[in-house]
């Protein structure tokens, strides 16, 4: 090593040593989804976020420059969009065909972006990305304004339970930073969004290619915009938290290392628990008290939503994977039938009457699906349907042969969501959200609610009753009355 090299090495070292270690991030990563088409500059926007937060390394840029040359796109040596197109096949086609996850962070927060394509036929990818997102960034081209696609994206995002939306009005430089136009589009969007249950809507004018209002402000070109940049808005966005409710603990696994220990392993899906708390096990209805909350680090005195723990109960009960341990008050529904919204994810769609596996967190059981309506994404209206095809969003009734515990998706995304698996292919053919439990007993006398009597019978007889032709006919007549 030359003297000069040694000196620069020493300098680098002293720089490194003087830089204080950053404080650990005091927040859970924010997960968000971006919706928009290639033409809106979506890949450029995400590429810009990664670039400006230094989530991209020099050697990765090197590989990208090589690729750009091959394409001869001529937009310059560094194309932000190329940072994103992960798979060779897609790069060759120039479109993103699947959900990709990107990671970047600021000193304050980490972010996980689900990058999903905007083409109409790829609704399933958007749904996949939205299923884990706290927030949605809807991207439009300032020149074209709100399109049919924007409504579609807002609709899907809203159905997936996302409450916070940021509308990024991109390519603002191409309309000469026109404030009037920006205000107009913002207003249009707010009107459109009234149909959906968003709790927060922010609109931001950006030029992703120039990096304006993405991570850095652009007062010079947009003195009229006094709001936050996209990155600041993301940093401040609250994490979506489940509605406060009773304790929910889907049992993943029984831990029985020896005769002396029997624990139930899982992740707390809602509420909290402490030793001594009484609990009920669903679907059996057996009761017990929690005696210990065990983790690798310590025996804890409380567990809260999100914690992966092992529960020990004060008595021997028959519990298996797929059961749910819940608080005695504020319990989920436990029914044979539910109303749900589902999205078909494969080209075969969903066959009414066929038996599918339903997996909800840790439980798997057979289900049959009755179709009621499908959402027309063009009009935003629900239409009567007989079958479900790829990318259809549909309202259905799920029918089980055993009672199953669910919350509504609105109350809890973990205990209110499920997937359908085709036993013939093992493929995941649908994702779904519970909207309502169907109370079988009550609905036997739907027209005289005041005169209803509670029928109690042993569960095996009840099940037989529910399967009987008599009961099925009753159900059918109720449904036709309802519609």
């Amino acid at each position, binding site marked *: 090593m030359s003297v000069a090299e040694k000196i620069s090495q020493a300098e680098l070292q002293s720089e490194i040593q003087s830089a204080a270690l950053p404080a*650990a991030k005091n927040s859970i990563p924010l997960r968000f989804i971006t919706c928009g088409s290639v033409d809106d500059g979506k890949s450029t926007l995400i590429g810009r976020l990664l670039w400006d937060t230094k989530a991209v*390394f020099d050697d990765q840029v090197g590989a990208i420059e090589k690729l750009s040359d091959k394409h001869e796109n001529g937009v310059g040596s560094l194309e932000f969009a190329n940072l994103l197109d992960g798979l*060779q096949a897609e790069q060759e086609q120039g479109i993103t065909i699947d959900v990709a996850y990107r990671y970047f962070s600021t000193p304050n927060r980490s972010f996980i972006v689900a990058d999903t394509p905007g083409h109409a036929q790829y609704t399933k990818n958007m*749904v996949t990305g939205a299923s884990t997102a706290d927030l949605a960034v809807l991207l439009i081209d300032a020149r074209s304004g709100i399109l049919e696609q924007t409504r579609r994206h807002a609709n899907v995002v809203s159905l997936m339970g996302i409450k916070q939306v940021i509308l990024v009005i991109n390519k603002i430089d191409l309309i000469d930073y026109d404030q009037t136009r920006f205000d107009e589009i913002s207003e249009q969007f707010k009107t459109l969004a009234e149909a959906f249950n968003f709790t927060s809507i922010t609109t931001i004018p950006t030029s992703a290619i120039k990096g304006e209002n993405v991570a850095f402000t652009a007062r010079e070109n947009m003195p009229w915009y006094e709001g936050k940049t996209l990155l600041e808005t993301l940093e401040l966005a609250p994490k979506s938290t489940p509605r406060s409710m009773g304790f929910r603990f889907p049992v993943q696994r029984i831990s029985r290392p020896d005769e002396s220990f029997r624990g139930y392993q899982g992740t707390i899906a809602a509420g909290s628990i402490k030793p001594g708390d009484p609990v009920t096990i669903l679907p059996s209805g057996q009761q017990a008290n929690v005696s210990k909350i065990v983790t690798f680090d310590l025996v804890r*005195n409380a567990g809260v939503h999100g914690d992966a723990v092992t529960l020990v109960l004060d008595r021997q009960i028959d519990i298996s994977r797929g059961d749910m341990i819940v608080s005695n008050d504020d319990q989920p529904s436990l029914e044979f039938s539910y109303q749900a919204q589902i999205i078909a994810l494969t080209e075969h769609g969903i066959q009414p009457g066929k038996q599918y596996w339903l997996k909800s967190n*840790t439980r798997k059981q057979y289900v049959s699906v009755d179709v009621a309506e499908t959402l027309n994404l063009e009009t935003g209206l629900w239409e009567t349907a007989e079958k479900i095809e790829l990318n259809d969003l549909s309202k259905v009734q799920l029918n089980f042969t055993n009672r199953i515990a669910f919350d509504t998706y609105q109350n809890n995304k973990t205990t209110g969501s499920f997937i359908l*698996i085709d036993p013939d292919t093992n493929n995941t053919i649908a994702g779904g959200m519970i909207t309502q439990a169907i109370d079988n007993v009550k609905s036997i006398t739907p027209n005289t609610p005041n005169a209803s009597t509670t029928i109690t019978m042993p569960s095996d007889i009840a099940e037989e009753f529910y399967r009987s032709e008599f009961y099925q006919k009753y159900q059918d007549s109720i449904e036709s009355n309802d519609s």
Partner: protein
Amino acid sequence: MTDTNSKPPLDPHLKALENEAIYIFREVAAEFQNPVMLYSVGKDSSVLLHLARKAFYPGPVPFPLLHIDTGWKFKEMIAFRDKIVSDYELDLISYTNPRGSAENITPFNHPRYTDIMKTEALRTALDKGGYDAAFGGARRDEEASRAKERIYSFRTANHSWDPRNQRAELWSIYNGDIFKGESVRAFPLSNWTELDIWQYIKAEDIPIVPLYYAQQRPFVERDGTIILAEDQRLELAPGEVVQEDYIRFRTLGCFPLTGGVRSTADDIDQVITEIQSARTSERQGRAIDKDKAGSMELKKREGYF
């Protein structure tokens, strides 16, 4: 009553990542007949192992570890591996492709070294064990083709990965249904970044191979890459000189293929600081990614991790 441990609690960011990883470990262990954990001895594997021990506590890790040993790993890696296995009472299976010694395939003399000694070896070892699920420590932030990888990555009976035929993955509901012969690779660290890994190693005081920390070490510089000259397995090219300086490694693999960096970061805090100011990715020193653009994707399609 108070929590009975003096260790400060994890910050919420790392706690969320830890909870997710533990959930994935438990799901796979509950749903598959015969899982195995790929253990490469690197820092990500160390974190993965730590999480596995946490997930199944107070029980033991309920599956074996599989190490694909090419015979060209850093000596310190093997010593570290053996100590960890004995300290934690783990069940380790080490597999080396017999073609290596039979056909004298080395990183220096064979263009398909990685394919044979890593990809082919992995496929053979998985077949021999009849595993239906294999945990890996891959992260989505590592390399472009991994950004679209699922948590449960479906593999056909010949272990190949078809990026166009992956199952949709919604919420945290994973589909583990497979037919005989098919398998799933499960990635509990999917959502971790390199920095998360290091901060977690620090927070949890996880032992890692000392090569990650700077020390005076002998090396040669080959095509701009710093190759450790630690033993007679490295044949010097004419005119090549063994130098000595403070170097460390950001990733660990086969020593002739893994480039070191000049650094004096000899403890975890300095390593973290160095990573935060780094302008090149950790895979920068890895020859495997650089053959051609998209080369990792090609390797994955063939069954590489």
